[in-house]
Every structure is written in structure tokens, then in C-alpha cells.
């Protein structure tokens, strides 16, 4: 009788441990698409300077390079970044 009660307690304990160890059902995490990089530049900040080759061909037959800071005090500049040539937009 004592043995039976003992094994009953044991079973109960084992069962409660099993329940405790069962992880709560967690919602399957939706796989987020990789976030598009966003600029950390803000309005009011100085635009990073650069010099880049362009599509414009100079009188010497060589491609003209443009330097952003050359436009300081002369013109506003719009930089329209596009993803790839031959794509829309």
C-alpha cells in the first residue's frame, strides 16, 4: 500500500515535470524581409563630398568627372540615385 502510494506520488511528480518542460506553443515567427537600408543623413547636415566619373564626354574625348563641392556657392544639386541602368523609374 505504501509502495503504491509512493509510486503514485512519483508518477504525479514526473507528470508535472513533463508539463513544466513542455514549451508553450509559440507563434511561428514571420520571416521579415531584409530591411532596406535607410540613410542616416538628415536634412540640415552637410552632404558628403565626392568626385565621380560621368556620362558626359569632354572636349578632350575623356569622361568628365564631377565634384560635388565644385557647385558650392553656384548651384543647388539634386542627386537622384537609381538602382540600375536600364530599369524603370
Amino acid at each position, binding site marked *: 500500500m505504501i509502495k503504491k502510494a509512493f509510486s503514485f506520488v512519483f508518477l504525479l511528480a514526473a507528470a508535472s515535470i513533463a508539463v513544466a518542460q513542455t514549451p508553450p506553443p509559440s507563434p511561428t515567427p514571420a520571416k521579415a524581409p531584409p530591411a532596406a537600408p535607410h540613410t542616416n543623413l538628415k536634412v540640415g547636415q552637410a*552632404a558628403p563630398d565626392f568626385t565621380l566619373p560621368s556620362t558626359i564626354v569632354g572636349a578632350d574625348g575623356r569622361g568628365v568627372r564631377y565634384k560635388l563641392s565644385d557647385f558650392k556657392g553656384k548651384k543647388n544639386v539634386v542627386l537622384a540615385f537609381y538602382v540600375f541602368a536600364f530599369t524603370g523609374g
Partner: protein
Amino acid sequence: MKAYQADIAKFDSTDTQVFGVSVDSPYANREFAKQLGLTFPLLSDFQKRSVVKDYGIFNEEGGYGNRATFVIDKDGIIQHIDEGNVAIDPTAAEDTCNILSHKKTTTP
């Protein structure tokens, strides 16, 4: 880029230089400019991708710059930013240039 070309006269009238910028080579860009009949320069950030990185729009996975438009005034200060698909429409950039053209520059 087509939309910018269509409105290039508006940008010219506000004393604004328009540049298209991508990571394509100048050769690819020349073909692209010819196809679209672009009169403004396209810049090639094809060697180090340093400009798209500096402007914080470099897409590491794709190896290209995301779509974005920056308007920079005569003092070299950023006055307007469009990111993503809204940057296809040059209207907001035009409006900014319009306001800027009525403002006096502080650079001598």
C-alpha cells in the same frame, strides 16, 4: 530618370544641377542615357560604391544603391530627402529647389 528629364527645365529655372547616380559603369550609363535621351549627367559610383555608402543607401546583398533623392543647397547642406519609390517622383525635389531659389545663399 525619365521623370527628371521631363522636368529638367523646371530644375534649370531654379538654378539646380541634376545628377543621376548609380553603381553602373560610365559605359552602361552612356547607353542608358542615350536610350532615354537624358541631357543631365549620370554619375558612376562603380569602383568603390563609396558614395552610396556615404549616403547610407548601399544595399549590401544586392551590391547596389537604393533609390533615393537628395536635394543639396548652394551651401552644401542637405535640404530634402526622398527614399524608396517616392523618389521616382521629382515633384518634392522640385518644390524644394523652388524654395531654395528664392533664398539667399550664405556662401560668399
